[in-house]
């Protein structure tokens, strides 16, 4: 059994059978009063963040979560099939759970899958992926202004704002945490 001394950033715990991860934790204690830990917790299923204050010494339940590296194999209907790189077990993950991460899935790409009691609850793609541009308006030769951008559609369906010099067929480095264009990759 865990207790409030475990309340450090990154600690994963169960509240009402839902897994939460500690985002922030602060020890607070009035000089003549009771000690508490003021925390910000993120619901690992929904991403919602909530404030919660625990009494020092309170017992906590550790969440049975683990992160595993898996390889993306293929799409089947609205399911995405992954393979655990260690056990070679296959796992299907629905579109709903992947959400915007669908736009970063490339065949054979490794991705971290968070499991809660053996079931997938979220995925973390690599921080950067390279995607090919399939559609964008032609740029204007000679325009080097860096403030002007245009939309470009990538092979996975992701639309990003890019500088005017980007053309169809270019490979772009994308930051998956912000969904932003980083640079054009020399090929």
């Amino acid at each position: 059994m865990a207790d409030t001394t475990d309340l450090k950033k990154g600690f994963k715990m169960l509240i009402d059978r839902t897994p939460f991860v500690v985002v922030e934790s602060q020890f607070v204690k009035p000089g003549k009063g009771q000690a508490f830990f003021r925390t910000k917790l993120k619901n690992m299923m929904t991403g919602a963040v909530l404030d919660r204050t625990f009494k020092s010494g309170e017992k906590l339940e550790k969440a049975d979560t683990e992160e595993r590296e898996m390889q993306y194999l293929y799409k089947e209907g609205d399911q995405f099939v992954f393979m655990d790189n260690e056990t070679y077990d296959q796992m299907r993950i629905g579109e709903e759970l992947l959400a915007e991460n669908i736009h970063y899935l490339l065949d054979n790409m490794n991705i971290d899958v968070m499991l809660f009691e053996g079931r997938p609850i979220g995925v973390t793609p690599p921080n950067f992926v390279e995607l090919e541009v399939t559609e964008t308006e032609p740029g204007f030769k000679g325009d080097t202004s860096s403030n002007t951008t245009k939309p470009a559609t990538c092979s996975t369906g992701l639309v990003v704002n890019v500088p005017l010099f980007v053309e169809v067929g270019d490979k772009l480095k994308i930051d998956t945490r912000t969904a932003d264009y980083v640079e054009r990759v020399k090929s």
Partner: protein
Amino acid sequence: MSESPRYPIDILQRLRPPAPVKLGGRVVALEGSTATVEDITASVPVECDAPPPLGAWVVATGEWNGVAVVGHCEVLTAPTGAFPKEDGDWPAFQREGAQRMQRLRARARARRAVRDFFDDRAFLEVETPAAVPSPGLDLHLDAFPVAGENPPRWLITSPEYQMKRLLAGGAPRIYQLARCWRRGELGALHEPEFTMLEWYRAFASSTEVMRDTEHLVAHVARTMLDGSTVIPGRGSPVDVAPPWQRMTVDEAFRVYADVAVDDVLPDEERFFRILVEQVEPQLGRMRPIFLTHWPASMASLARLHPDDPTRCDRFEAYVAGVELCNGFGELVDPVEQRRRFEADQKRRESEGRIAYPIDERFLGALEEGVPPSGGNALGFDRLVMLLLGAETIGDVMAFPSERL
């Protein structure tokens, strides 16, 4: 060993080159045969005939040409491993513009300012023991036991008992910068070992001590900040110039949490939850504030309030949401004090905490007679933190517990 270097490195600014010099310091960078030698005042490139190892403590002898010292570095001590050492003491104190070292110097200035303030007002600086027969019976404080002592000893959680015994002994104005220890307290505003500034004033109540507090903090701020009373606080500045605002606990709960203390009070945990979640963070944001008239059930060593026996003569000051001190119009009635101690012991026992002994000599002092007095315990590390705009009290200590 070589003769000691005569001057700090910043003396070079005042020398007209070419000049012969002899300087001591540490080699903090090395490029070819040029060593950057640094001491607490400055650094200088030394073009050496034989380059010393990186990290070595050296005495550089040679000629100052206005840009560099050209000459020889005598190695006094050389590091046996890598330099800088990962997690070593040099980087801990010197990185980010030697921030921790600078803060230690500022802390020393703050200590001096505190002493000047009290010495000027005829307070006697005292030192009382760290290991005591009873560390206090506060329900929410746990003490470190001193191993193997019989009768048992604990490290003080505050020097309160012995200082009040000094009042009985005839010292009417006393102060102390005391090292205190509290188990299980660690966070941005807590370290298990910390420094408490505690003072007592006879023939006084909390009114006079609150006045001491605001003038003390303003004095220390002016000393540290070139006459200004606007301190960095935590993220946004706070003007600590007196007078500070006074507000009762009842009023604060009404204003910031929209509840009546008497409705909350039967549930002590709820009281403290509201205090830490809703009230404290709002207090002292632009100007410091005193919270007064605490519930009588939380009187500790304070007397009951002369205007209202359901409240006690206890105050706390808040600066930038940080509890800076806790003071009392002191309880000097031995019968009432014994009754509270016995009740505190029972409560500690029922909550599974150690019921520390009652300090009979302390009660004896009250029986002998302690003049009506006011006292205050102020977190010195927190004061320095707020004056410097540091994030944690560990940032203004030489060695916070994580560095031990």
